[in-house]
């Protein structure tokens, strides 16, 4: 059993998402704020009806609705327009399986005849009048009145799901960031163990826990105390007073039991270790229906622990579906580039979906690290080789006071043949990308090569139109003059021709000097444009 597709509308930052998932491993990458974690949260919500460990109805707040949508709605009201009140929809389309026939039907936004579940938060029609009153004066409204909304948790057969047992898929969400207070922390810790127990084990625990309460009363010392208390009858109250353990809470071993790690309560163990234990326990459970959601596995873990954990995940994943979000190219490499979903603007792209299959092969074969720099960066500058890379890096640092990567800008050195392949991905991902290139003496040839991208909004081809300055070195010389170049290089050439010859034969050294020098120098204009 696995989730084939997730459709989300207006949930938090996801205005509209339609993501097709892999049957087993899904490594979801994307820039910060792209909604990876929100996607995981939405999946967990639709499977369990719970948010932050509590029923959605308790956790419902105005900011669960997409901010843009809510604002657009209010603005439409303000100018006297009519618009449908915002609603949230999360749909999980499951792979067809006879065991899931109960959830099957075509009551979903894509009208697909598959099993599935959906969570809908919409205006409760019986509160329509209250709502109309509320929005009557749009200038006063700041937030949505969630108390007028209801939550409909249904399967694709259009029947209500009453509780989490109505969904035959189990799920574990591993996300330390949801722990906001003490109660949540201990619940999270108990859940770590609870989700991996069989129902028989859970019953045994509940029974033993109750028995223990009964035995408490039989202890001679407790009995003596209770006898003494009983003797006070009449003095304080007409009824007998005694002490006992609280047996009123229903089957509540969860409240009284704490998992331990090497005899240390799990709440007192580091968060990284907690998560790692939770992930491993989830992996141990044999249910094939178990879906594991891992939010940023690399959080709170040292490199060595992460290495060990990721090794464990890839070795024990088995037939289960796993969704894991990450910022770590290490995690990516370790789990395999073929499982990667590039998540961006509500869509997930697989490398296998690239149009040109030679591009696809190229990226599948590249070491994951290089490929994914493009994905993880906010913006990329593609350069032709190590010299250009050093010059661009330093020029950026000189201008912004920080290295480009610290601002999410990655300078990637690309073999000139691969430029177009990188650009294809960049366009697909909607990544702003600059290409910094030599004109090699023919602007016409260069324009021909990048014809597809010359008018692109996303891709800028940066080059100098002066065909006499074919490469980086003459460009640097032209911009800075002989004196500055001599100062940077620590040389004393008398003529431009001789310094150019030196630079051409010592390219790497030249670039390194520019990178390290304290002397003030300026990048050529086409590089300046790229580091804007």
């Amino acid at each position: 059993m696995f989730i084939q597709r997730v459709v989300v509308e207006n949930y938090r930052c996801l205005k509209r998402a339609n993501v097709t998932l892999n049957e087993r491993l899904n490594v979801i990458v994307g820039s910060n704020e792209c909604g990876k974690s929100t996607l995981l949260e939405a999946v967990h919500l639709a499977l369990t009806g719970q948010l932050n460990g509590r029923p959605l109805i308790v956790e419902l707040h105005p900011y669960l609705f997409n901010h843009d949508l809510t604002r657009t709605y209010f603005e439409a009201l303000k100018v006297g327009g009519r618009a449908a009140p915002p609603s949230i929809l999360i749909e999980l389309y499951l792979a067809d399986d006879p065991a899931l026939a109960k959830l099957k039907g075509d009551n979903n936004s894509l009208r697909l005849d598959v099993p599935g579940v959906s969570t809908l938060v919409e205006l409760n029609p019986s509160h329509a009048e209250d709502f109309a009153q509320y929005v009557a004066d749009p200038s006063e409204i700041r937030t949505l009145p969630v108390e007028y909304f209801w939550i409909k948790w249904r399967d694709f057969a259009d029947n209500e799901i009453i509780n989490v047992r109505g969904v035959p898929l189990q799920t574990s969400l591993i996300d330390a960031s949801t722990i906001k207070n003490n109660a949540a922390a201990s619940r999270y810790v108990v859940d770590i163990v609870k989700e991996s127990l069989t129902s028989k084990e859970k019953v045994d625990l509940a029974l033993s826990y109750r028995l223990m309460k009964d035995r408490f009363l039989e202890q001679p010392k407790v009995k003596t105390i209770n006898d003494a208390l009983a003797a006070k009858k009449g003095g304080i109250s007409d009824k007998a007073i005694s002490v006992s353990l609280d047996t009123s809470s229903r089957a509540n071993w969860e409240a009284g039991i704490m998992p331990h790690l090497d005899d240390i309560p799990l709440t007192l163990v580091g968060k990284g270790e907690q998560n790692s234990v939770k992930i491993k326990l989830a992996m141990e459970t044999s249910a094939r229906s178990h879906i594991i959601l891992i939010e940023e596995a690399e959080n709170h873990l040292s490199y060595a622990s992460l290495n060990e954990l990721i090794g464990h995940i890839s070795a024990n994943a088995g037939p289960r579906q796993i969704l894991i979000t990450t910022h770590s190219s290490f995690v990516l490499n370790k789990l395999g580039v073929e499982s990667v979903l590039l998540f961006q603007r509500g869509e997930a792209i697989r490398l296998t979906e690239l149009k040109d299959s030679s591009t696809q092969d190229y990226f599948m074969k590249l070491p994951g690290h290089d490929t994914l720099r493009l994905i993880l960066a906010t913006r990329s500058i593609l350069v032709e080789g190590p010299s250009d890379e050093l010059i661009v890096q330093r020029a950026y640092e000189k201008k912004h006071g920080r290295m480009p990567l610290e601002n999410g800008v990655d300078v990637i050195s690309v073999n000139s043949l691969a430029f177009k392949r990188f650009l294809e991905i960049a366009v697909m991902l909607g990544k702003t990308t600059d290409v910094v290139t030599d004109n090699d003496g023919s602007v016409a040839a260069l324009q021909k090569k990048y014809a597809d991208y010359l008018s692109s909004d996303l891709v800028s081809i940066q080059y100098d139109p002066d065909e006499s300055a074919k490469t980086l070195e003459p460009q640097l010389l032209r911009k800075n003059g002989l004196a500055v170049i001599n100062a940077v290089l620590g040389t004393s050439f008398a003529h431009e021709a001789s310094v150019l010859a030196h630079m051409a034969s010592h390219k790497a050294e030249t670039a390194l000097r520019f990178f390290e020098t304290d002397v003030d120098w300026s990048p050529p204009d086409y590089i300046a444009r790229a580091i804007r």
Partner: protein
Amino acid sequence: MPSVNRIVISAAGGGKTTRVVDHALAGGNGVTALVTYTRNNVREIQLKVYERSPVIPANVEILSWYSFLLRELARPYRSAMHGRRIDGIHWVEGKSVPFIPEGKTASHYFLDGGRIYSDKIAKFICACNAKSGGAIMRRLKARYGHVIIDEVQDMAGYDLELLELILRSGIAITLVGDHRQATFATNNSPKNKGFAGPAVIKKFELWRRAGLVTIDYECHTHRCNQAIADLGDGFFPHEPKTISRNTVSTGHDGVFLVASVDVREYIKTFSPQVLRYSARTNCDPLDPMNFGEAKGLTFDRVLIYPHGKAKSWLASGDLFHVEKSATKMYVAATRARFSVAFVYDGKTCGIRAARWRA
């Protein structure tokens, strides 16, 4: 190849519920649906299950006919017919909106577009299945390994069309009931009017001849003694005879006539359950129960207040008089283990009965 589908006609007191439950608990492939008509029937069956098993097993689902229709058949593919969710069922006694043609789907089938009329839900399902290319039956087949439908004699109108559709779907179906107890109809649709009441057996026969089902008769009764079983059989002379397995003797066994002046004394002596045809039947004692309500129940003794036609039948023994009320008479007569008494002052008696005097 003989059909895997069965219709089991079970005589009154034959332990039908017990057999249905045992059948469901026996398991088999996949999930078994046990569908019965009313919520009371659902409760009765649940209690029967608890006599045998501490919980209702996960592979057995007990549901009422209308829940089954709504949740498993009408909702999953309603989009083929109707644009919005079917929130529930609107109960109608007679015919819902008789002058709105079926072309106007939303108002023909639905009250306010969201509640489907109880007399049209089966029709809706049949049309929706056709329109969705058989998706409803495909889903049903994946959903259940075995569907047992109880009280099948009460099915009327499009319910019969739907049953036929299910019989043709390839799921193993067991239909259980007794057409002699067809005192009730799930709806009053003009569709299949010729198969209403006990005539539903003719529909079963058509299905049998089409190779859709086999029909088995369960002719034993654990409840009634032989005299009472014979009295019941008397209303349906062409059906197989019922054999009693109740041989207990109490000293007052069989069929009796009681004069109205003796009723108080009779009630004092035997404490029978008083039954009447309907609220309009004249009877003075406390706590009478209508024939229809008594369906499915067992008493040691009953005292029946006959309606006018039944009095004519008592006088002459001619079934012509009770032709229209045969099912209700059958139900009333077969409630008791030991004795059935009619309140009757007539001089002649055309049935096999002894007069009781105070």
